[in-house]
């Protein structure tokens, strides 16, 4: 109920929301396959490969925040690491990419592992 009132007071532009999340998802799926390539080249196996993916995926979020979100968000009076100017959920922004690109990551990881070590 309270969130409905909030949405009435401060309405949200659906087109902008979709544009932002599509931009971010495109980046995540692209970079996830890139991380798969490098994990395959490094010859990582099991947990270390997934750790590699998690670290680089979080790094993607941080870089995206620094380059695209932070300059206008902080100048408009938001606190650092606050993404509410462009995205609805903060947790979704920082960790949503993990599930988003996992399939692409595993695909290119196994492919390049096979190519390099065969």
């Amino acid at each position, binding site marked *: 109920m309270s969130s409905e009132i909030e949405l009435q007071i401060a309405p949200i532009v659906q087109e902008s929301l979709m544009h932002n999340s599509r931009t971010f998802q495109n980046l995540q799926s*692209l970079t996830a396959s890139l991380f798969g390539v490098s994990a395959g080249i490094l010859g990582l196996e099991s947990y270390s490969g997934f750790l590699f993916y998690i670290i680089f995926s979080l790094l993607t979020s941080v870089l995206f925040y620094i380059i695209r979100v932070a300059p206008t968000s902080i100048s408009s009076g938001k606190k650092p690491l606050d993404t509410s100017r462009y995205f609805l959920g903060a947790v979704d922004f920082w960790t949503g990419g993990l599930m988003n690109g996992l399939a692409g990551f595993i695909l290119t990881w196994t492919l390049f592992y096979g190519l390099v070590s065969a």
Partner: protein
Amino acid sequence: MTFISKAITAVGGILLAHACYSAQEHSALQSFRATSGAALTSAPTTAVSLPLDIVLETIVSTFIILLGLVLVTRPLRPIQWREWAGKIEREGEEGFKDSNGEVNKDYIGNPFAIFESRPNFVDIRKQRKEFAQWVKKEGGQKAQ
């Protein structure tokens, strides 16, 4: 900006391809040693992990490509209605350009523009004054 980010991505791609080729050569060399070294028995044929320079090159090139890909993303738009509308009012089409300098296809502009151009709100006296000035100016140029 778009040229710089594409150049960064291309440099990272070349580095990554080089690292991939090096790693492939390394593993081929390892398997060659394993087969030929068994006959010689001079050197121990333990499997050597990837050399440090290839590891570093892979990680650095991944980071460079990542930087290029983040730089090439399109600018975001504010989701709060008041910030978004303020941006439209202040910047107009300038604020909704992609990295190539073209206005986005789904840019709709001020959603209330139709209200502001209603016939009831046209300032007819101002338009008449402007028209009179225009006639005077054009007539003056003709006379010269």
